[in-house]
């Protein structure tokens, strides 16, 4: 018997590629997406990404509704970015129709936008800790996140989908008697910050699992048009709030946060993603404080009556771009309005994960299977709820099966097993 006959040829074994599918439904993923990893041993040598499991045709629907209905639809694109999309969408429509926004409304929009950043980054940090198997840190982080959710509920009435922006202003004020709640939250998070930085960044196991894992080099981040903390972790100083200010950000000096602000060189790994997001929480606290202290007096909206607003919008003609730096990166809305037509003629939405999708490929390459969950989580992906399932039969034919059909199949199986 020689080595070849019992297939001990080490060379072939080492270079053989295996394909491991992850998703669309997988414990490591919070939302549906399918990865097909090509592996050489434990190393990832290729990845194919298939999104679309949560595609609900929102732009198609939006182009068949009036603009105010579409505004509420835009709020429901994502449960976490439920102010980011309306902020970008209202700006796009206001730019297209030439509607002014009163200063006080701009400040209120900014405050809610920054509160969303705080809770989104804390949510992400908790998920990150969970993916590393550090569940006590997850519980601590999500516990302190509740303070922000409570404040949002006290200010707007809702934990998500705040329904604050309307074309030309905001729908609700932040009255003086409620401002102290916001100040309380600011103090709470300021006192916590040192502790959070210590827990996340000075922990040996976090360091070992995240440093030099899931690296997105500077050049790749630029060439692949990545956005948000994902690109800033690679040292790219890109932030819409800094580059092309809008709302109350135009009254402040915002600078894009990179790992250099923490005194370390930017590598673009998962650790740098944590650094950037935690420092951005601190930045958001400062922004909220500035807005509360310098809140201008005045109107909440330039066109308070909804019928008048709809009539103005129906007469409007033109195109506009609205951008907002959401927690995950740049949200971009393009709108073209036609006079006499209620729905937008064109509505294009770009969410941050759309930009960061391709950035996943260099991040995964060369890392190990066990790193898949944390690398997948590192860009803070957002695919939203799944509405259909892809199944592949033995011949590789792909079909789409509705939810009901799967439930039926599941019930049949239960009956079969129970005899």
């Amino acid at each position, binding site marked *: 018997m020689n080595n070849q006959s019992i297939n001990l040829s080490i060379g072939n074994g080492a270079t053989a590629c295996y394909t491991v599918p992850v998703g669309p439904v997988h414990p490591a993923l919070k939302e549906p997406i399918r990865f097909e990893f090509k592996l050489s041993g434990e190393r990832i040598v290729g990845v194919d990404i298939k*999104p*679309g499991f949560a*595609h609900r*045709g929102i*732009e*198609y629907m939006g182009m068949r509704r009036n603009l105010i209905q579409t505004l509420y639809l835009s709020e429901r694109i994502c449960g976490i970015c439920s102010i980011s999309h309306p902020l970008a969408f209202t700006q796009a429509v206001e*730019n297209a129709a030439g509607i002014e926004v009163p*200063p006080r409304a*701009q*400040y209120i929009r900014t405050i809610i936008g920054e509160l969303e950043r705080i809770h989104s980054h804390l949510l992400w940090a908790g998920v990150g800790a969970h993916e590393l198997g550090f569940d006590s840190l997850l519980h601590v982080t999500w516990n302190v996140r509740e303070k922000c959710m409570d404040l949002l509920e006290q200010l707007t009435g809702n934990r998500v989908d705040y329904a604050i922006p309307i074309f030309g202003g905001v729908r609700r004020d932040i009255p003086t008697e409620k401002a102290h709640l916001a100040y309380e939250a600011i103090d709470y998070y300021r006192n916590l910050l040192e502790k959070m930085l210590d827990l996340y960044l000075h922990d040996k196991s976090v360091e070992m699992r995240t440093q030099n894992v899931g690296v997105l080099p500077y050049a790749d981040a*630029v*060439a*692949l*048009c*990545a*956005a948000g903390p994902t690109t800033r972790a690679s040292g*790219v*100083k*890109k932030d*819409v709030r*800094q*580059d*092309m*200010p*809008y*709302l*109350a950000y*135009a*009254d402040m*000096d*915002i*600078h*894009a946060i990179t790992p250099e602000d923490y005194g370390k060189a930017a590598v673009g790994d998962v650790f740098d993603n944590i650094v950037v997001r935690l420092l951005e929480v601190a930045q958001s606290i400062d922004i909220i404080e500035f807005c509360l202290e310098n809140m*201008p007096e005045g109107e909440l909206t330039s066109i308070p009556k909804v019928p008048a607003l709809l009539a103005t919008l129906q007469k409007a003609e033109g195109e*506009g*771009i609205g*951008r907002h730096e959401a927690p995950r990166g*740049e949200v*971009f809305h*393009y709108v*073209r309005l036609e006079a006499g037509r209620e729905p937008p*003629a*064109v509505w*294009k939405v*770009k969410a941050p994960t*759309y*930009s960061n*999708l*391709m950035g996943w490929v260099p991040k995964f390459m060369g890392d190990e299977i066990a790193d898949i969950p944390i690398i997948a989580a590192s860009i803070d992906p957002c695919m939203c709820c799944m509405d259909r399932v*892809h199944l592949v039969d033995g011949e590789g034919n*792909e*079909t*789409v099966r*509705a*939810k*009901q059909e799967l439930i*039926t199949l599941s019930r049949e199986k239960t009956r079969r097993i129970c005899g």
Partner: protein
Amino acid sequence: MIPETILSSFRDALGQALLDEKTIERSVGTRTPQAVYDVWITVDRDAFHQAVEHLCTNFAPHLSVISGDDLEDTLALNYHFSVGWGEPYGEITFTVRTNVPKTDLRIPTITDILPGAQTSEREKQEFYGIAVEGIPDGRNLFLPEDMTIHPWRLDLQEETSKSVKRLVKWETRDE
């Protein structure tokens, strides 16, 4: 970035192929208002690839997304770039528009210049039925692989609504 800098550079580089240009100035800030700019140019399809190449060689753009606009006989594609990022008030949005006739739905890929455009190009292929020539990976991205309708095309709405109705009927059927 000053709009005139980039526009004059494009006038020199493209000449007659630069069909239209407009600059929208907006005022931001409630205390000391400052100007920000949205710049739009329309280029001939034959010079489109050259225009993007010129942009990428000289201005290090970021591509936000490509949007499409169905105008009956033509399909307008808007490539929403932004240039000058990295410093306060340094950025302007720069949209390169090109009109593609419905009878000849083709556009060259720009992934050879800016690899990050691939996601958006794949999306335009499936939703508008336009052929992006030379795209490294042309499979459907968001829609299922076997889906052949192009939902954002206004001239194919009948087909789309049939398909949507079929899907709704299927998903809500009572068993």
